């Protein structure tokens, strides 16, 4: 089961603070959308509004075309995977996963069967009799996922579900999450502040800041062609070079006036947008690349971060002729 979500001019006010400022967003049925932003950007508020844990101050939320105003969480076609899992400690995993079905009046035998199938889906086959406290963090997260999916929601809401896991486990769970979403076809709305996680799983990333949507699009689009300086900076490291009157600090450039943004890995000896000869200030070996700070000879005060291939000989004082393969120009 799956449904579209439509958010129309939604604002949310807490006292004098504006947590969401006139946000509109359409999510297609079956889409995996990631709400990405720093803490306090409004992404969790938006998720809570979709789940029905709060009512918007103004605006409208539709799920599957149905207006959700005044509909309690228990009556919405959504379920949530919470950051702290929120498992029921006094119930077995089977009863945890079957809880939603129990509330829907499904007989015990049927819900046990469904619960076991859901546990198998998340890789916890045959552990239905265990209690939550016997599991590791990653396993608890899987149970929370199985529990939320067991009632076959139209929309699954995930509130920083991987936030409490260590990095390695997080990367592994990302892949599984994406695979499970493909299999069940449910609309996933996932909140995170980790841009790598967002790029790894999202069909579409929605970048939020100060209660507004800054940018949205597929990961490649948002990373390579950000629409705002905030998005450019939040998605990854970026060199910002001011351009005015067709001139950059290192010389004339064939781009419009504004802030020329170049990612460190877009800079190479063969890049089309020439930066000219640059002196290497320092360099460090990062395994898959060499990270260096360089300054163009014509603008020694400008420091650029570059990621060069391991094969490149990069050492302090060496002069390299560099250019940018991709770039965007944004206004302040």
């Amino acid at each position, binding site marked *: 089961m799956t449904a579209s979500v439509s958010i129309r001019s939604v604002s949310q006010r807490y006292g004098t603070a504006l947590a969401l400022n006139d946000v509109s967003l359409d999510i297609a049925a079956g889409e995996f959308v990631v709400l990405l932003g720093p803490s306090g950007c409004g992404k969790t508020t938006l998720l809570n509004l979709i*789940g029905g*844990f709060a009512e918007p101050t103004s605006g409208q939320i539709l799920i599957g075309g149905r207006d959700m105003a005044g509909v*309690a*969480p*228990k*009556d919405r076609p*959504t*379920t*949530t995977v*919470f950051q*702290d899992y*929120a*498992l*029921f*400690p*006094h119930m077995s995993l089977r009863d945890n996963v079957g*809880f*939603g079905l129990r*509330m*829907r009046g499904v007989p015990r035998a049927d819900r046990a069967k469904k619960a076991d199938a859901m546990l198998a889906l998340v890789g916890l086959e045959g552990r239905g009799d265990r209690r939550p406290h016997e599991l590791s963090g990653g396993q608890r997260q899987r149970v929370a996922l199985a*529990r*939320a999916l067991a*009632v076959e929601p139209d929309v699954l809401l995930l509130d920083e579900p991987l936030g409490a896991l260590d990095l390695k486990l997080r990367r592994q769970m990302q892949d599984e999450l994406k695979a499970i979403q493909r299999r069940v076809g449910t609309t996933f709305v996932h909140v995170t502040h980790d841009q790598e996680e967002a790029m790894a799983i999202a069909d579409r990333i929605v970048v939020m800041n100060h209660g507004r949507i800054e940018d949205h699009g597929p990961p490649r689009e948002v990373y390579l062609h950000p629409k705002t300086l905030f998005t450019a900076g939040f998605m990854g490291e970026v060199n910002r070079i001011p351009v005015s009157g067709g001139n950059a600090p290192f010389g004339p450039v064939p781009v419009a006036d504004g802030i020329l943004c170049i990612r460190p890995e877009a800079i190479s000896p063969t890049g089309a947008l020439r930066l000219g000869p640059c002196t290497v200030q320092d360099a460090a070996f990062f395994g898959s690349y060499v990270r260096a700070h360089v300054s163009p000879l014509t603008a020694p005060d400008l420091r650029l971060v570059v990621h060069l291939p391991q094969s490149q000989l990069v050492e302090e004082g060496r002069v390299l002729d560099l250019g940018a393969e991709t770039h965007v120009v944004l206004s302040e």
Partner: protein
Amino acid sequence: MRLLSWAYLAAAYVFVFLPVAVLVVFSFQDGRLPVPPFRGVTFEWYAKVLSDGKLMTALGNSLLVAVVSSTVALILGFLAAHALARVRLPGSALMRGVLIAPLTVSYLIIALGLLNLFTQTGVRLSLWTAGIGHVVINLPLCFAITYAAMGDHQRNAERAARDLGAPEWKVLLLISAPMLAAPLAAAFFLSVTFSWDEFIIAFLLTRFDVTLPVEIWSMLRSGLSPATNAVGSLVFLVSVTLVILLELLVFRRTK
């Protein structure tokens, strides 16, 4: 130094338990008076007490009042604690204060107040009125214990239950209460113990059917006898059993 601290510990225990020990020892007195010298062991007084219909009825009454009033106090205290922990209301702090306030009022004052109220409203004194008095003294205790035990952990689980389609009464019954099983049991057993040996309220608010402490008091008026010691020992035994049950069932499991 070490010896001194052990001696101090022993002295403290003697101070606390000597009266109880004397009570128990002289309940076995083979003689008419529960005073030294100790004349030998007999179970005569226990036999007498256990075959005393009035005493046994009073014992039954005490158990009934204790269990029923504690159950009521626990349910009301739990609901109040849950509401005040979850919902932000204007005057929450004041409401908490008012709920806990009876803990600081002497039982005598509570009993007098209730006696006044019952007399004026024409409610006849019975085990029910004594039970109401015990709810008044135990509700603050149940409220305080459950309120202190509620945390974000429960709040999030309750939120998840609602999200999965549970109506509010099922959230309370299937999630909140089981997650608080240990503090709820602790509150219940403590309430039962307090109600079990409470005297003043039971004395002022009962008339024809009385609880055990009131019955013991009327026995005492006809003078000392090893029989009163025997009843006292039984009361003590029940209290100790409750405390041990509490320790075994509640605190041992949560460790």
